[in-house]
């Protein structure tokens, strides 16, 4: 409930008076709603039982508690280490850890399997799942059920961290997933397959194969996560339409973030940084259409954005800072727009492999722009050509990269400024901004 209130308040935060009025009405409505729900839950809890798992008592294993439990019950697990394997939760219960109890999978199989709707797992340390190259073994595996809630757990040394298959609706939040840093044996941190309407927020994922992996996952929200030092991608999207991701940080992953074969994605306020290596990208877009990329920061990546077969994507108000190549756009990209972005301190601002251009650049700030603004409207009077002559030469002749930072290379770029006809790539910003865009 609190979450929904927060979302709505974000939506209505724009602050014009009618919205504020509406906002207050909404709040009243929400408050009354939540009171009703609170009462409702009290009345349920009157029916629901609490079962406590504690060593030394009669119920000393989770399995015993599960056998006793009915739908709607709460199982509280007290602080201890429990050695378990494939705990199957097939009733709609809440499993709550008191003082971070440890569930140790003894490196055998999955640790927890959930197959009932409306299950909550909160506050556990889950470690040592099995590792297998054939079966995907996970810390928490959720299969074919609805509205699962996985909150505030610490997952260590698990093959896959949290694995969702065919799940409708759910929340994954506040978890920390730490891989075992073995490239061969690691799976994905949070793995979604054929799932929809899942909220993933405030998680931290380190040292897995892919931090977050989506395949056929639709209508999901991914926000405020940190994905760092993963072996392959920080976030990996395939065939997953209509997802939003915002305020995430993807740092120092093997190959950055990959979004592939997908449409209607919104990527807002994310940070992609330090994805550095000869085949590493801040953001790799492959066969993407009708998506929106805005207010992100791309810093210190080998390629900030790498676009292949990307159509009708709007890239707006992003910052490209100190990348090797800020944007690499292959010739099969069409109808993409770049508006009001800042390009600062990149070795190359733009590279492409074709001469025809079907994309649109306007009003960006380029620190390499050296034109003038006679009528003082803040827009440069000469168009800016972001694809430098030297980068065009490298495109045709990869071994010319040998001359990087040599006097010749710098002279070539200067020559291009004096004689624009030297350049054959038909790509330019018609109204480059004279000032950094805030």
């Amino acid at each position, binding site marked *: 409930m609190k979450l929904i209130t927060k979302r709505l308040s974000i939506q209505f935060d724009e602050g014009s008076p009618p919205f504020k009025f509406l906002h207050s009405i909404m709040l009243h409505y929400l408050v009354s709603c939540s009171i009703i729900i609170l009462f409702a839950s009290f009345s349920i809890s009157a029916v629901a039982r609490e079962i406590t798992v504690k060593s030394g008592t009669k119920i000393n294993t989770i399995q015993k508690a599960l056998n006793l439990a009915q739908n709607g019950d709460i199982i509280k697990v007290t602080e201890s280490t429990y050695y378990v394997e494939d705990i199957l939760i097939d009733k709609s219960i809440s499993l709550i850890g008191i003082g971070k109890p440890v569930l140790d999978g003894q490196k055998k199989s999955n640790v927890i399997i959930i197959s009932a709707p409306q299950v909550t797992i909160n506050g556990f340390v889950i470690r040592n799942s099995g590792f297998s190259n054939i079966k995907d073994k996970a810390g928490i595996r959720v299969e074919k059920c609805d509205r699962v809630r996985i909150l505030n757990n610490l997952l260590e040394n698990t093959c896959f961290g949290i694995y969702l298959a065919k799940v409708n609706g759910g929340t994954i939040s506040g978890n920390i997933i730490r891989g075992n840093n073995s490239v061969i044996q690691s799976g994905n941190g949070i793995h979604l397959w054929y799932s929809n309407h899942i909220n993933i927020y405030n998680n931290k994922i380190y040292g897995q194969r892919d931090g977050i992996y989506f395949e056929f996952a639709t209508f999901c929200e991914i926000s405020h996560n940190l994905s760092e030092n993963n072996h392959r991608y920080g976030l990996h999207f395939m065939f997953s339409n209509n997802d939003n991701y915002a305020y995430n940080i993807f740092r120092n992953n093997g190959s950055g973030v990959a979004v592939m074969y997908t449409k209607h994605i919104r990527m807002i306020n994310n940070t992609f940084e330090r994805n550095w290596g000869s085949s590493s990208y801040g953001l790799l877009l492959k066969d993407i259409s009708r998506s929106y990329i805005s207010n992100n920061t791309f810093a210190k990546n*080998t390629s900030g954005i790498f676009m292949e077969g990307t159509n009708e994507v709007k890239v707006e108000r992003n910052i490209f800072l100190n990348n*090797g190549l800020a944007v690499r756009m292959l010739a099969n990209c069409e109808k993409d727009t770049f508006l009001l972005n800042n390009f600062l301190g990149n070795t190359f601002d733009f590279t492409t492999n074709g001469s025809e251009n079907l994309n649109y650049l306007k009003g960006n700030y380029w620190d390499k722009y050296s034109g003038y603004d006679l009528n003082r409207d803040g827009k440069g009077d000469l168009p800016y050509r972001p694809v430098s002559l030297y980068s065009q030469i490298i495109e045709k*002749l990869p*071994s010319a*990269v040998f001359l990087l930072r*040599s*006097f010749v290379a710098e*002279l070539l770029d200067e020559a291009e400024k004096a004689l624009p006809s030297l350049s054959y790539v038909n790509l330019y910003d018609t109204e480059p901004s004279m000032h950094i865009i805030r």
Partner: protein
Amino acid sequence: MAYGVLLSLSSFGLFLMNEDVTKGLSSLLTVLLIVVPLVSILFTTIYIFNSYEFIELLVAQPLKRSIILFGLYAGVGISLLAVFWIGIGLPAIIFDGTVVSWYFLLSGSLLTVVFVSLAFLASVVTRDKTRGIGISILLWFYFSLIFDGILLMVMFAFSDYPLEKLTILISCLNPIDLARIMVLLKMDISALMGYTGAVFNQFFGSSIGIIVSVLAMLTWVIIPIGIALRVFKEKNL
């Protein structure tokens, strides 16, 4: 003196202007590759021509000519090196202090001695001061620009062939290229260089590659000064 002030001004300026140290270093690389060779070769040539009478006086003394030449070489070389170390080396180590700045120093020092050596060659082959300076400027121009230009043209002409290994060999023919590659591969920018970069990295990044490139640079010191010595010994002053 002025050279020292110029170098230290440019390096401190570049480091203070850029919040990002690697960016400061990469701007300084341009200074290193253009200014250091130019000043080394010009300063040495002018110095030798200006002290020609003094050299004549020394030759009249019972001294070996080779000792006179090496004395001169050591004097000029050490002073230029000292200025380089204070002007660029100190700021680089203060602001950066990583392995990159040490490579920076190594390649800069080698460049300095290489171009001092070339200057000796330029100034013994002719008696005329203008011609001597002309030759040294031409040498600098050749190594910093013409060589790479020709290399680029050759690469275009033979672009169907795998040229990576050949370019490693060719780069040994130009001390400025050697210095640039040595520093570039230590800077994190090397990731930009893709496949070709990987080939270079494999060679120049390995300890054998570094030894080979340092040896190639030293050859660039020895051969010009050796020729200069032979000419100077035979020469009628």
